[in-house]
């Protein structure tokens, strides 16, 4: 019995049987919420957002299932190549990228316009998971075990910050740090790192930020002091949420959203629109779905035998959680305005693809949770 239960499923049907359908259902709910809200953003029209979102979501879900079917060995092998490729693209963005709304984030490859920083979010997780998987436990707190992750996280973080994209940088550094933390970093070093951050972050805020980024942080601290300036977005978002009340203004009835008081409602502020139209109830339901998704991911992580899978799942879950936390924290006025979308609900192709790719890895980890790929294989092994 025990042998049977712990066996790694082989073959398409066996793997499909092991698929975590609960998680898939939760993701579908989020995707449908996104389609519904984008239909409202379009004033009751599928065009231009809802239909594209639906198409991408369908494509992304298919990709997710395909990703889930690949064995962990494959992704371990791909971890470093993907990371190096993403790093190369980031350098490419630095050199040849498109500048959209003041930030150089995009790169055109033939017909595809993509944000390498989004790919890097998954890539850095895979690379770190692979690294710790291979690293003997006693080396984690050694110089090699400390410096390599620092480089793996630091290099892309520096490039993304330079674009400049504060939100993605925070996301990347935080999910990398979580993997380092989970792989057994000693509390002494954590304490030392926290100390360094306590000194470094104020310095960074003073010297490392663009003016508009600093303004956003200042505005966050007191948004109503400048209602028509930078604080306008936060204030209007709070008005929209607050006026939604307990049960909301009704689907497609949100005046703040439909009269354009709400900025970027199809992307960063879609949760606000949801909160205006469906009220406290709607907001809590969405938060609950996200919480269930994350609880599911943590459960999957702890159930995995291999370090690579555990760390990958937690890294991706962290990225996902940070998306949710930063976005909802921002639109409810708890955090400064940083351009982070609400995963699977906000309009935007690259983010949806990376998120669903990540969930492909999580679902794959669940299917292959009993697999124990060898340690210390070669770079591409």
């Amino acid at each position, binding site marked *: 019995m025990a042998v049977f239960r712990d066996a790694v499923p082989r073959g398409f049907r066996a793997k499909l049987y092991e698929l975590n359908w609960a998680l898939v259902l939760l993701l579908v709910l989020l995707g449908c919420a996104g389609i519904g809200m984008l239909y409202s953003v379009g004033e009751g029209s599928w065009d231009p957002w809802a239909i594209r979102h639906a198409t991408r979501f369908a494509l992304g879900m298919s990709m997710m299932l395909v990703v889930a079917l690949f064995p962990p060995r494959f992704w371990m092998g791909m971890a470093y190549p993907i990371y190096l490729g993403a790093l190369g693209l980031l350098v490419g963005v630095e050199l040849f990228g498109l500048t959209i709304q003041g930030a150089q984030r995009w790169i055109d490859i033939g017909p595809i316009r993509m944000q390498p920083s989004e790919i890097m979010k998954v890539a850095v997780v895979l690379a770190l998971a692979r690294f710790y998987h291979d690293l003997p*436990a*006693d080396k984690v707190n050694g110089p090699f075990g400390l410096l390599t992750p620092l480089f793996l996280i630091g290099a892309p973080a520096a490039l993304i910050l330079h674009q400049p994209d504060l939100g993605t940088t925070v996301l990347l550094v935080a999910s990398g740090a*979580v993997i380092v*933390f*989970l*792989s*057994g970093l000693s509390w002494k070093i954590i304490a030392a790192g926290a100390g360094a951050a306590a000194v470094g972050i104020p310095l960074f805020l003073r010297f490392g930020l663009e003016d508009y980024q600093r303004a956003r942080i200042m505005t966050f601290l007191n948004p109503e002091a400048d209602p028509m300036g930078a604080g306008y977005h936060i204030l*209007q978002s*709070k*008005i*929209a*949420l*607050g*006026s*939604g*009340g*307990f049960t909301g203004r009704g689907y497609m009835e949100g*005046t*703040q959203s439909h*009269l*354009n*008081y709400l900025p970027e409602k199809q992307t960063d502020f879609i949760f606000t629109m949801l*909160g205006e139209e469906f*009220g*406290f109830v709607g*907001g*809590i339901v969405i*938060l609950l779905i*996200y*919480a269930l998704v*994350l*609880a599911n991911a*943590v459960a999957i*992580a*702890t159930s995995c035998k291999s*370090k690579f899978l*555990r760390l990958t799942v*937690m890294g991706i879950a*962290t990225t996902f*959680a940070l998306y949710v*936390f930063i976005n*909802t*924290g921002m639109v*409810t*006025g*708890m955090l400064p305005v940083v351009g982070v979308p609400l995963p699977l609900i906000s309009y935007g192709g690259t983010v949806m693809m990376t998120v669903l790719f990540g969930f492909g890895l999580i679902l794959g980890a669940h299917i292959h949770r009993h697999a124990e790929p060898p340690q210390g294989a070669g770079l591409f092994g």
Partner: protein
Amino acid sequence: MRIDKQEQETIFTRRALLLGGGGAAVFLALGARLYTLQVLESARYRTLSENNQFNFLLTPPSRGRILDRNGAIIADNRDSYRVLLVPEQAGDLEAAIDRLGEVVPMTPGTRTRILDAARRAPGFRAVTAFEDLDWETFAAVNLNAPDLAGVIPDVAEVRRYPSGPAFGHLIGYVQPASEEVAGDDPLLRHPGFRIGRAGVEVARDMDLRGSAGSLKVEVNAHGRVIRELPEQSVQPTAGEDIQMTVDAAVQNFAYERLAGESAAAVAMDVRTGDVLALCSAPGFDPNLFVTGISTANFQALQNNERRPLFNKALQGTYPPASTFKAVVALAGLEAGVIRPNERVVCRGSIRLGDRDFHCWRRGGHGPVNMRDAVKTSCDVYFYELAQRLGIERIHDMALRFGLGPAPELGVPGVRDGLVPNEQWKRARFGQPWTTGETLISAIGQGFMLASPLQMAIMTARIASGLQVSPRLYADRGNPAPPSMGIAEDHLALIRDALHAVVHEPGGTSHYSLGGLGVEGVEMAGKTGSSQVYSITAAERAAGVRSQDDLPWRLRDHGMFVCYAPHDRPRYAVATVVEHGGGGSRAAARPARDILRFIIERDPSRAGPYVQAPASTEAG
């Protein structure tokens, strides 16, 4: 190695659950935040949302009309056919304006003006492309409107003064409020709203304005109106109509009669004080000011030496000259310093100290009594009377007849006249009064000044014996004027003398007027002329003999006051013609003609004569 791995797994699980717990805490915090915003503070944000969503657009009220005593329109509002352009809806602005140009002919200058205005305005705000289009063009725009994106045919109200310049001074005009006047008042800032800027329009502005309505509209974040909510809107309340005592026909006649002169005329009902006409010539067309007067037109008005922008009837002050003599005569009678039949011999001048005071008739009038003196306007008689009276008694009587401080009329800019006395001269010049000044004052010259309105009041009070005050607004009550308290036999004597001025040979206006020209109605009047310039000996030698030889601006002012019917006085008219020469020449005929026009319009003149109980007329 295995132990290590197990240890590592334990660390991982513990730390993963720690993170999971942290995540749960964040979710709780977010939930609590949503609860605060959406449940606890919802009402506040709901209000803010509605403030965002709804806006109230001001709808300006119609300005009240100004009517004459018979209900004829002096000022009302007309529809102006306008074409508005909403840049946001027009697409390519230049193309849109060119398309409009195919319907409404426009010059390149107009095209540039519209284009500039459209580019400056926020895209959703309509700019005025054309105003005051004729009906055919406007109809053509309406017809083509579906093909003209962003073009809105519109009808707005514009002030109209049908009589034009005849009423310019009295009624004034309206204009948009200036920046400092408007302040933060949304109605005053409204581009379609006008406030009174002169005359009755400013004096009764608050009555005429009415109150604004508001149109509730839903607006988006860019301020564009999404829809109107008329059921939650307040209709504007139109301003009050104002009825004046003025008779538009008389006013128009008077204005036309003064055409070509620099002159003023005031006509009053002597029993009620109703102002039937009050005009100043040349005038200006207030309609020009409403739509925005061109710089060239305005400069032409400003630079005209006959001062069309200046209301001579209220703001012009002139020596009343001989028209004042009746008042001095009454003062003499009341003081008892002269008997009516006492004769003063006029030899053409009298000597006072080392100075000669001349009569206007160089040869003198010979012996004259009071009636003769008024009739022939003998200066020497009044020099003698002045010496007996002294300046104070002349001053007091002048004030009783409405000279001196400006009368209350109910429009701005009524100027004070001037009646001097000893105290005034000491205060003004720090010098003592001289008897010579008393003499000059008694013939209405020297320091004496009075506006045409004051001359009309003086005449009305002589004619009625009542202390009438000018009344401009029929919609405002007027208490019955009290008696002047002047003995009726004194008044009768003066009125008889004033009648003789026109109707008896030797009267100063007998030759030029000879009468009113209405059968069965006779008039009374008094001439006056005030010297502007003394013809010098050198000029006399060079052949300048009379006023006609002088340049216009140096000629005497002429004035004439009169009333009719002489035996049952009802209407008084005063005219001043600047540089018109002696009063019997330029001023008398227009005054007589205006008086005749009024008498002929008065239906009561046809009926049997009934002495009106003067003191009961009010309102």
